[in-house]
């Protein structure tokens, strides 16, 4: 984007021709846009120019103080004034000011401290103290200039932060946690420039930082308790739809992230998808293909996980065409070539060979440079080493969190199915049809088995009240009206009702029913608290769904009860006929 870049450069207060020179030198003119590399070089040249060095490529190589950008806050905000980002900015600013106290005040100090606080990745040359102070105005300007869009852009830089800076002050404590993210990404951006001679990261925005990663993992766990399993498509669809991105965009994001096209998201795929959504919400255009840093193998290697579930991929081995496999093998080779010494095995081992061979990138033109570097190994190390007390400060995460606070529901949600609720197929059938009504998440199929039990026992609690009430007035022949009343309540108490009915048929006595309702009532005491807890969380959604299903089920239940009644009568007739037959038989025999 030439506009914001030009503004930024102008803020460096260098003469226009110097800026032109710099632009040319960094290659932006040649390439036509400011890619990350060009940008870094440009900034480095600006720093050089500001220090009085001649603007030449060689200046880039020296150790330079950071460039200074004098900017007003308002400029920064206005500059990125496309509605989405403005909105993001507005959301961000109140968040920043309110979320943690005295953000602005602490901003400067923290940024200084941040530069010394531990973060990931090796830094070749630790910044000396003068640049720290220079960073303050820089980052201050940055924090407003870059607002939400760049936040993500720079966020991944954290991954390249110095591991533990000995001059660290302990203040990187709780109060600065959210600021850390903000500040650290800015600082990381500045640090990044100093590391230009190292491998360049053309895909910064697509690098998942540790906090983001943690957040994604938590979200994943809220949808699917088992981190090594996967989220089904419908569940993920509901979840991601909350992000309020358009369906085609979500569809495209899914396409990018579901690398094995199995209709389900594993943890790395989920992280990638989430990250893409977050990036998109912050105004980043979606990439043509899945960036290398978001590919599942990379994510898995960077954040090692338990054993992969290969069964799914085995099932897809037949469906994937043969010509995709050579491509994957190519990628594997490249991966192995690019592997640095200190990231030896995880890439290959964590993901089984089968999976590697089967994984196909979405975009065939995607360059398969998976630049594994020491940063990732440090990521995995620091992932464990770091205290987990950090929260997520960036607006994008905040928005995502707000969004995320809506969906997570505890897995045991009462699934309002009808008739045999224990049937998994019915649940699956209902999931596609019902999700529109339920704004909350549908629990994933693997968690199904426990659910029908609380649901049934919950519904029994309501069902058994009615039978008791209805049975009070009438006696033996009442079982049918009682049953007719029962369907008006929660239908899935049928198995219990069936228990009632045969007992009624057998004895035509109230007592068995009350006896059976006795234990049922005991059982219902337990589900009550859970019911209340769940309903409090998802009250409206559940109740709407409940109502709809009730209506549908009531009809069916009524029908069922009528048929049951008929069955009973037929039974009695049969018994009567058999008796007659018995009586008549001696006659016929004779």
């Amino acid at each position: 984007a030439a506009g914001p870049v030009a503004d930024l450069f102008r803020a460096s207060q260098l003469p226009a021709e110097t800026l032109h020179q710099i632009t040319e030198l960094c290659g932006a003119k040649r390439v036509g846009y400011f890619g990350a590399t060009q940008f870094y070089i440009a900034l480095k040249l600006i720093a050089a120019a500001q220090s009085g060095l001649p603007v030449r490529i060689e200046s880039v190589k020296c150790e330079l103080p950071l460039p200074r950008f004098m900017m007003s806050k308002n400029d920064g905000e206005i500059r990125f004034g496309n509605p989405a980002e403005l909105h993001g900015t507005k959301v961000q600013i109140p968040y920043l000011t309110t979320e943690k106290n005295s953000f602005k005040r602490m901003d400067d100090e923290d940024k200084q401290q941040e530069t010394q606080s531990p973060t990931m990745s090796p830094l070749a040359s630790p910044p000396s103290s003068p640049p720290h102070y220079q960073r303050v105005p820089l980052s201050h300007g940055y924090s407003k200039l870059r607002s939400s869009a760049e936040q993500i852009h720079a966020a991944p830089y954290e991954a390249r932060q110095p591991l533990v800076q000995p001059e660290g002050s302990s203040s990187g404590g709780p109060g600065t946690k959210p600021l850390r993210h903000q500040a650290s990404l800015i600082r990381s951006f500045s640090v990044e420039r100093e590391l230009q001679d190292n491998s360049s990261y053309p895909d910064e925005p697509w690098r998942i930082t540790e906090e983001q990663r943690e957040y994604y993992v938590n979200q994943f766990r809220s949808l699917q308790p088992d981190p090594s399993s996967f989220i089904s498509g419908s569940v993920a669809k509901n979840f991601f739809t909350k992000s309020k991105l358009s369906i085609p965009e979500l569809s495209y994001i899914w396409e990018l992230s579901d690398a094995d096209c199995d209709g389900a998201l594993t943890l790395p795929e989920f992280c990638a998808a989430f990250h893409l959504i977050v990036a998109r919400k912050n105004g980043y255009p979606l990439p043509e293909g899945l960036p290398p840093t978001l590919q599942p193998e990379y994510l898995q290697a960077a954040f090692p996980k338990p054993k992969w579930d290969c069964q799914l991929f085995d099932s897809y081995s037949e469906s994937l065409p043969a010509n995709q496999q050579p491509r994957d093998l190519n990628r594997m080779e490249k991966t192995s070539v690019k592997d640095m010494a200190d990231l030896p095995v995880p890439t290959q081992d964590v993901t089984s060979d089968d999976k590697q061979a089967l994984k196909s990138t979405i975009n065939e033109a995607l360059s398969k440079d998976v630049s594994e570097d020491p940063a990732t190994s440090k990521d995995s190390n620091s992932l464990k080493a770091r205290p987990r007390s950090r929260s997520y400060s960036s607006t994008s995460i905040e928005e995502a969190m707000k969004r995320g606070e809506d969906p997570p529901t505890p897995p045991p949600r009462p699934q309002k199915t009808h008739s045999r609720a224990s049937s998994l197929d019915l649940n699956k059938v209902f999931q596609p049809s019902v999700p529109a009504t339920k704004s909350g998440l549908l629990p994933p199929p693997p968690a199904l088995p426990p659910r029908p039990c609380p649901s049934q026992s919950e519904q029994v609690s309501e069902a058994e009240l009615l039978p008791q009430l209805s049975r009070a007035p009438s006696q033996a022949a009442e079982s049918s009206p009682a049953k007719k009343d029962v369907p008006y309540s929660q239908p899935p108490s049928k198995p219990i009702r069936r228990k009632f009915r045969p007992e009624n048929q057998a004895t035509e006595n109230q007592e068995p029913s009350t006896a059976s309702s006795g234990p049922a009532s005991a059982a219902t005491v337990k589900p009550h608290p859970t019911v209340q807890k769940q309903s409090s969380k998802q009250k409206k959604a559940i109740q709407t769904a409940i109502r709809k299903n009730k209506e549908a089920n009531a009809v069916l239940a009524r029908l069922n009860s009528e048929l049951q009644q008929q069955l009973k009568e037929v039974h009695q007739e049969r018994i009567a006929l058999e008796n007659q037959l018995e009586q008549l038989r001696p006659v016929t025999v004779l």
Partner: protein
Amino acid sequence: MAVCIAVIAKENYPLYIRSAPTENELKFHHMVHTSLDVVDEKISAMGKALLDQRELYLGLLYPTEDYKVYGYVTNSKVKFVMVVDSSNTALRDNEIRSMFRKLHNSYTDVMCNPFYNPGDRIQSRAFDNMVTSMMIQVC
């Protein structure tokens, strides 16, 4: 190699249709449309007895002077129709089959996307890319 590729839904409306020479697209659309009759004929000709063994690849539907039309039906009655240039004699049956297989695979991938509602037009970039790769080879 193909000059036109179309994916037709079960209800015989197009989910995806693309032609390589951008002029005269209507002609290709019409050809695809008329080929649907042939497809239906072939499906019904197989009869219910052979439903299990019904091959997905239908082969050459009908040749015109300039073009040949090939068809392929999935088990969910989604049809793929491909129009190739008659002058391209190097194309063998195997290649056509493999192209259909690729189409089918890409189509399944599109289906797997939970955000895709069956019956919508196919707007997947991956699918587009795959189709482009099949059509580009003409030049």
